[in-house]
């Protein structure tokens, strides 16, 4: 169980019940829980979708896709059942927010599923929890039992004529099943391999039925949006980047932890004010802005950027999943690139050639390189291998492996050169704690 942190700049929407025992349904109800569900039961499906569109809520899983728009892709009529699928596979290195939601406020997720289902006409929901989060399953299962006992889940929810089932499911420990189509395969009991798209899940998803897939945090925001209204929620963030999000601050900061801040919050303040700066007053070297799959920022870049989707996409980069990792001046960027690549090589599902073979060659090359066996052509080779994954793999995991690697080689090429010709790693004394990223 993680310790909770706080900061005055925080705007607590999603995290408002954290630490208050809201995992128990009585407390959740006392804190206003399931009121949004009652409200939504009185709304037309389109009204719910419009409210979510107005909120400018964008997917918190990493891609930042407008949630209301995603829901509107679901066909009104469908021969096959429709489903809501909550993505709780949270495995993006540096990201550790969904676990807090599931631990402290599981009913918000259940309530969000129910409202999403009402909006798109689904009557079954699945909450898929990362394999390593076993302890959360107990909490979630208890919450589901309580919700059922109180009539929020099951037959005739809240006394309406709607029957709605919500199930939990757990993975076996694979980053790749966080990718939405691999997630569906895994839930259906198959190997966690992505599907060909189109068709997109909103049209052909679980067992062939239209399926809305959203991140835990995205879904948890839904009851709040219904409660306060989309406009209010949107107003927390800059235009088109509605609301707040949970930022998971880790690495070389004095006060790491999960903070809920409005979208558009300046990165510099996040590191130096919310995070309390870098231990030992060291200098900043790099920032991973939103999980290891994003382009790394140099100190200059980090200085001037705000944490919202559009500020990043304007640079051709990504805000990502909220996992902010701060790296100080003593960090070896070659080692960091290696550490990241070990992760992707381990997690590549192996389906497609560029990613399966590419991540493996990158890991091998970086391992040798960091150990002092690097030769000149390796540096361009690393870039070449990454470029050949970028945009060419079957699913975005290949991109995710290529993006940080390319940005590290391009922005910190000098550090690679410093490792050449058998030179020992200049940062050897610094031991990078292995589990920090996994």
């Amino acid at each position, binding site marked *: 169980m993680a310790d909770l942190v706080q900061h005055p700049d925080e705007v607590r929407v999603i995290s408002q019940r954290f630490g208050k025992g809201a995992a128990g349904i009585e407390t959740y109800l006392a804190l206003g829980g399931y009121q949004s569900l009652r409200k939504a039961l009185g709304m037309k499906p389109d009204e719910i979708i419009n409210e979510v569109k107005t909120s400018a809520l964008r997917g918190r899983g990493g891609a930042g896709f407008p949630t209301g728009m995603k829901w509107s892709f679901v066909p009104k009529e469908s021969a096959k059942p429709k489903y809501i699928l909550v993505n709780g596979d949270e495995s993006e290195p540096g990201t550790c927010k969904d676990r807090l939601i599931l631990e402290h406020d599981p009913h918000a997720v259940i309530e969000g599923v129910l409202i999403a289902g009402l909006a798109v006409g689904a009557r079954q929901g699945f909450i898929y929890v990362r394999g390593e989060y076993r302890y959360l399953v107990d909490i979630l299962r208890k919450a589901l039992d309580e919700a059922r006992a109180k009539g929020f889940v099951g037959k005739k929810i809240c006394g309406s004529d709607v029957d709605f089932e919500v199930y939990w499911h757990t993975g076996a420990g694979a980053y790749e099943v966080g990718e939405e189509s691999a997630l569906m395969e895994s839930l259906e009991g198959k190997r966690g391999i992505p599907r060909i798209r189109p068709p997109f899940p909103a049209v052909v998803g679980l067992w062939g039925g239209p399926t809305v897939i959203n991140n835990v945090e995205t879904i948890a925001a839904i009851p709040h949006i219904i409660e306060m209204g989309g406009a209010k929620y949107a107003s927390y963030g800059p235009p088109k980047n509605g609301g707040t999000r949970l930022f998971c601050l880790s690495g070389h900061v004095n006060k790491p932890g999960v903070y809920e801040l409005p979208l558009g919050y300046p990165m510099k303040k996040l590191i130096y004010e919310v995070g309390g700066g870098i231990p030992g007053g060291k200098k900043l070297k790099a920032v991973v802005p939103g999980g290891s799959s994003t382009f790394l920022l140099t100190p200059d870049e980090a200085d001037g950027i705000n944490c919202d989707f559009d500020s990043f996409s304007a640079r051709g980069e990504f805000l990502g999943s909220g996992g902010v990792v701060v790296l100080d001046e003593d960090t070896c960027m070659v080692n960091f690139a290696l550490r990241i690549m070990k992760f992707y090589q381990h997690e*590549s599902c192996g389906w497609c*050639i560029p990613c399966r073979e590419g*991540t493996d060659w990158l890991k*091998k090359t970086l391992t040798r390189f960091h150990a002092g066996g690097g030769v000149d052509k390796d540096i361009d080779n690393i870039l070449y291998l990454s470029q050949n994954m970028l945009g*060419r793999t*079957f699913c975005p995991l290949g991109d995710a492996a290529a993006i940080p690697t390319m940005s590290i080689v391009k922005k910190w090429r000098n550090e690679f050169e410093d490792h050449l010709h058998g030179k020992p790693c200049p940062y050897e004394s610094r031991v990078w704690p292995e589990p920090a990223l996994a």
Partner: protein
Amino acid sequence: MVENTQLVSLTVDGKKISAPAGTLLIDACKASGIEIPSFCYYPGLSLQAACRMCVVRIDKMPKLQTACTVPVAEGMVVTSESDEVRQARKATIEILLGNHPLDCPVCDAGGECELQDMTFTYGAAESRFMEAKAHKEEQQWSPVVFFDRPRCILCYRCVRVCGEVMDVWALGVQNRGVNSVIAPNMGDHLECEECGQCIDICPVGALTSGAYRYKTRPWEMNHVGTVCTHCGDGCKTTLGVRRADNGMEIVRGDNRDKSGINGDFLCIKGRYAFDFQQHPDRLKQPLVRKDGKLKPATWDEAFDTIAKRFNAIREQHGGAGFGVIGSTRTTNEENYLLQKFARSVLGTNNIDHHRTADYPAFAAALAGKPEMAASLRDFEKTPAILLIGNDPTHQHPMLATAIRNNVRLHGAKLFIVNHEGLKLRRQSKAYAHIPKDGYGKFIAFLGGDDAVASALANGHTNREQLMAMREMLRGEHQLVIVFGAEVRGKDLETLVKLGMSHTGVKFACLGDYANSRGAADMGLYPDLLPGFTPLADAGDFAAEYGASLPKSAGMDLEKMVDAAKAGKLPAMFVVGANPMARYNVQLGELKNCFLVVQDMFLTETAAMADVVLPAANAYEKSGTMTNTYGDLQIVRPAGDFAGAKPDLELIVRIADRMGVAPQSLVPFGRGTRADMGQSRGAQSGEADRHAIWMVAQGIEPKVSPFDPQALLDEIQRLVPGYGFSRLNLFAGNDVPTHTAGKGKGAHQDPELIWPANDTLFTSGTLGRYSNTLNSVVEAHEGKRYPTQVETD
């Protein structure tokens, strides 16, 4: 696959092309002559998008797209050849090669490897990598399947062909990432149908076959396109042949060019059970019985012995002194010749063969409506199939595959009626599990007789299910009804009549061996001339043969065997058959019967013979064969086997020795070039283009008395239903023949039909001489795979 005929226009590399809506870009390009490289894409299998070799640039799309997953769209602009695209493909090859063993010089696939070809095209020979390659030992998964893991490029073709096409699902992927590996269903070995489809479809040398492994280099083989000698489906196969001390050795069978009725399918028998050809027990010399023992003899001695005895018996007993038994594995020409020899030289109608289907009843029932006979091709797309009896998974593996593919790709509805639980049931829409003796009743039920329903209903299928199935069947207006030997005689007639009242119904009658149908069509019956012609209608044949043909029906197989045992049949001539084993006749039980046997092996029947002539098999001769659906195909010799002769030659030589002019049996030399008029070019001293053309077409001149084509001419002229297109046949295609009986013979004793009930791994007497089949049976000992399906 794409039924939509609406055309979509698009531009690829500046070239305007069009394709039916829904076509995948990769297929549209291929059809227009633009080759897009691919590893994982395979037509007819599910899409994978895994290898990323087929990437192309499509205008207005942010990334390179995989041509194997994108359907064509109106106005689409595609670039398939550009620096960007070539570079992407090259990079993919490079990283693949990084871990590839590159043991091309010793790899079976060397020279036929798609990875080699792509490397050649994209030039990724230089390695960027310094790390050692991962090595793993080769594994043997079954008697026929070997796996060399490092060569595998994980295209998943094997997994899909095994699962989707064969419905066996014996291969899968284990582990993830760079540790992903193809794995067999039993952990360290395979239990499957051993069809070898996975090996055939593997683009590299990762899966290799026990029969072919390390035996040859592809370019050292001759490739001969012919027809499988085993079951009645008549799959086309390309034999890979090498020279051997005793003639030739077949080392491979496949149909990679997908020509023919079977596409690229072959079952274990077609793919591997050619090894009987080199079996050490093959007869290499004639044998003549002396002092009660079969002793090696010269051909002269053998033919003399036969001719003398045959002539003497003919003098003394006339035609009634002979019994002739033909083969279900010899060619049409040989079968035709055999009956011609029996009737016109020996003067007997005592001729028969091992019947495995009631073709005469079928021909009689279809009389006048030959178009209602289904070709094997009809199963590819017909919207509905009713299978009554038989287990195609075992007895007609290609038919089973065609049905599965049709259900999978075109949504055909399969209805099954059987007394056992078939594997094909998994593809069926409705299944009636009836009692073993219930086929006739079921047909009556189909015809509307509800009274029999209760007799059919049993623990498996109840009355309501039967009714529902009949209702569904009545709604099908394009239906192919295919039945096994369970349906014969009167039942067969009733069934066909019933179907005829529907429009759009076609029928297929399943017989067991490669040329069972040909044996029937060519008149190996005591009461039917070729083309199911009644003896009374012998006119054309009598005129052609220039002899008065025996008028009354002869003895059937069983009667002949009985007569021989009773000492009442002075001579018996058995060509490529083993009746004594079938009728359990023991050595010494035949009395006063001069037995001549033509065979490859010293079978139970040959062991009793007075003269045994070593015969060539279908892989060593030319001719044609007709599969059980009536599809006629050409048979080509892969080579010779020292010491053996084709049955056709043997029969002609016996006749010759008996003093019969060969030309009266084989009309060779007739209609030669001179008759057809030389081309003017030849007269003026130029190359005789006409002659060259004729030779190229394989039609002229026929100057050898052993030339099957001279007989084919006669068959084409005389045998009803065999007026096929020669052009198509000689181009290597299957051409339909038309069953069109004029009436049925007298001997319709259903007991004479004796289905072989072969499994996937047996093939009558012939199968006993295939080491591959034997080793598979041994490996599967005790496991009744794959019929074991749960039946409720």
